[in-house]
């Protein structure tokens, strides 16, 4: 009976699928990272250098991988790439393993400032991978003058209304409002949160949209002329249209850091350390800076960058001393609920 044969075929396929999904060979690590955030041939080069296999799982946002690790304990993963407030939260929840500096000699490649980051002095539970600022990215040919303040984003001139986007992620959305008022980006006082919330609700009226991922293409197409952006992302726009410029508002910015964390549940911690050591090598760091146009805290890598490249993408040349002037995002503890609620009220306002 043909139906039976089809069923048998399906069952056979299912068995293959089942066996393919379970179990990893020893000497193999699983990384979870954003797409395109590491060299494409990383796996081959890592294997050539250390003999260890690696597989990459992708996550689209910090929040998703955090949800998965908190619910699943991080089992099966060996290195996670998450932003600093989330690394801090993983540490507080007991889900991050201690970093053994003895296994990572390339830590010496880091800038001294990168070893003294506020959220983890001495890099005990994470290792920085990339860092940068958040500011304004705009079309210099479509915007008069230079927008130099967060107020340009929140209370723009009429000509710009309807052509502005802001970042959608709660921490950065609120940070813009906080910095505009001179508050800390880690502010937990409810009264101040409410003030910033009111500002942002008013600012919503001039916005085109909240956008975390395609704001630079909106700039390139002219749909938007001034966007709230991370500096590396702005470079993608600059690469397409050299009239696009990046500026850090005078009130200041935050210093965001993307980090590598080893889950406590990892069963291949030695190999995970080997991976982090490999990433901190001069070559990988330089690839990151050149290909995804982000700054890395890797002194050896940054020193190797071409001067012309730095001239085209000035924000890559920002020295660490200046970066450290930005406030670092910390996990907010109990105040996180208040931020999420404030953002809900902002997005729900009509």
């Amino acid at each position, binding site marked *: *009976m*043909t*139906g039976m044969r*089809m*069923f048998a075929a*399906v069952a056979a*396929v*299912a068995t293959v*699928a*089942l066996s*393919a*999904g*379970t*179990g*990893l060979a020893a000497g193999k690590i*699983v990384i*979870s990272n*954003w*797409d*395109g955030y590491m060299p494409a041939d990383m796996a081959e080069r890592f294997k050539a250098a250390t003999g260890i296999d690696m*597989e*990459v*799982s*992708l*996550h*689209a946002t910090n929040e*998703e991988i955090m*949800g*998965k690790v908190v*619910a*699943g*304990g991080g*089992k*099966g*993963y060996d290195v996670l790439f998450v932003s600093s407030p989330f690394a801090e939260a993983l540490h507080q929840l007991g889900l991050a393993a201690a970093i053994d500096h003895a296994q990572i000699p390339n830590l010496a490649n880091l800038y001294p400032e990168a070893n003294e980051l506020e959220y983890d002095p001495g890099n005990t539970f994470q290792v920085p991978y990339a860092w940068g600022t958040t500011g304004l990215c705009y079309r210099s040919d479509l915007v008069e003058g230079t927008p130099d303040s967060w107020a340009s984003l929140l209370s723009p001139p009429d000509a710009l209304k309807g052509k502005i986007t802001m970042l959608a992620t709660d921490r950065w959305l609120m940070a813009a409002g906080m910095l505009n008022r001179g508050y800390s980006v880690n502010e937990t006082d409810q009264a101040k949160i409410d003030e910033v919330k009111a500002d942002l609700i008013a600012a919503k009226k001039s916005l085109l949209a909240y956008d975390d*991922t*395609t704001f630079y*293409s909106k700039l*390139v*197409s002219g*749909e938007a002329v001034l966007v709230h952006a991370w500096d590396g992302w702005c470079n*993608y726009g600059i690469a*397409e249209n050299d009239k696009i410029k990046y500026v850090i508002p005078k009130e200041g910015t935050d210093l965001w850091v993307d980090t590598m964390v080893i889950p406590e549940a990892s069963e291949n911690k030695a190999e995970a350390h080997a991976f982090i050591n490999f990433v901190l090598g001069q070559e990988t760091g330089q690839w990151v800076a050149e290909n995804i146009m982000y700054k890395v805290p890797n002194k050896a890598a940054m020193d190797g960058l071409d001067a012309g490249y730095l001239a085209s993408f000035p924000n890559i040349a920002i020295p660490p001393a200046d970066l450290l002037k930005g406030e670092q995002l910390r996990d907010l503890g109990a105040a996180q609920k208040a931020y999420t609620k404030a953002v809900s009220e902002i997005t729900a306002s009509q």
Partner: protein
Amino acid sequence: MPDASRWLRAHLWLVYAFLYLPILVLMGLSFNRGGMPTAWTGFSTAWYGKLIASPQIVSSAVNTLIVAAVSTAIATALGTLLALGVERRRQSNALDALLFAPMIIPDIVLAISLLSFYTLLGFSLGLHSIILSHVVFNIAFVCAIVRTRLKHFDYSVVEASIDLGASEFTTFRRVTLPMIWPGVLAGAMLAFTLSVDEFIIAFFTAGPGESSTTLPMRIYAMIRFGVTPEINAMATIVMLFSFTLVLASQRIGKGVVTGS
């Protein structure tokens, strides 16, 4: 009624136009030479070439189809049986609530609950855990559709078959199933569609690593650079491949029903 027929058919074609408009955009952009969706810079099939050469994308597409096919098969079987069992009884609010629940529960809740549950049991994660999870909501949809087909079902035919000596199974295969077949088919198509496109539950219940990455998971992660023609090409290929798969299984399915 010729007039009504003409209007109906015109309406159907308008609906098709509406349904295919974004698909044409999507397929068109997959041939765009440049990477941005905002400007057409020339025709090129380079992106398709790049796709075929990328093993991870191909494997995630295959994973998606495996998950969809298996979970649809299981859910259609269980959902149909469930519908048959429920419709013979007196209406029960508790049962109805249970059967609607998978549709109502927000998928993030289901995703996190299932992951927590699997972790508690020490259950290994992989493609199989995605399949088990997808069956949950698929059962509800299949059951709901088959139930509508059973609402005015003439059970006397089934009774007659049994009275005349046919076993339960033969009766099911030769009498009941052909009568409810369009409902079962519709339910299966719905389940397949839901599974092929499902991201949240798949992301949370998948095992770590590439071997249990599905296409929606991959696409969601790739979106950070915007929708490149490569992604559009991928969507086009999966669509056409699913269509071929379903067409083929439909031909086979017809064999089951008519007994050929």
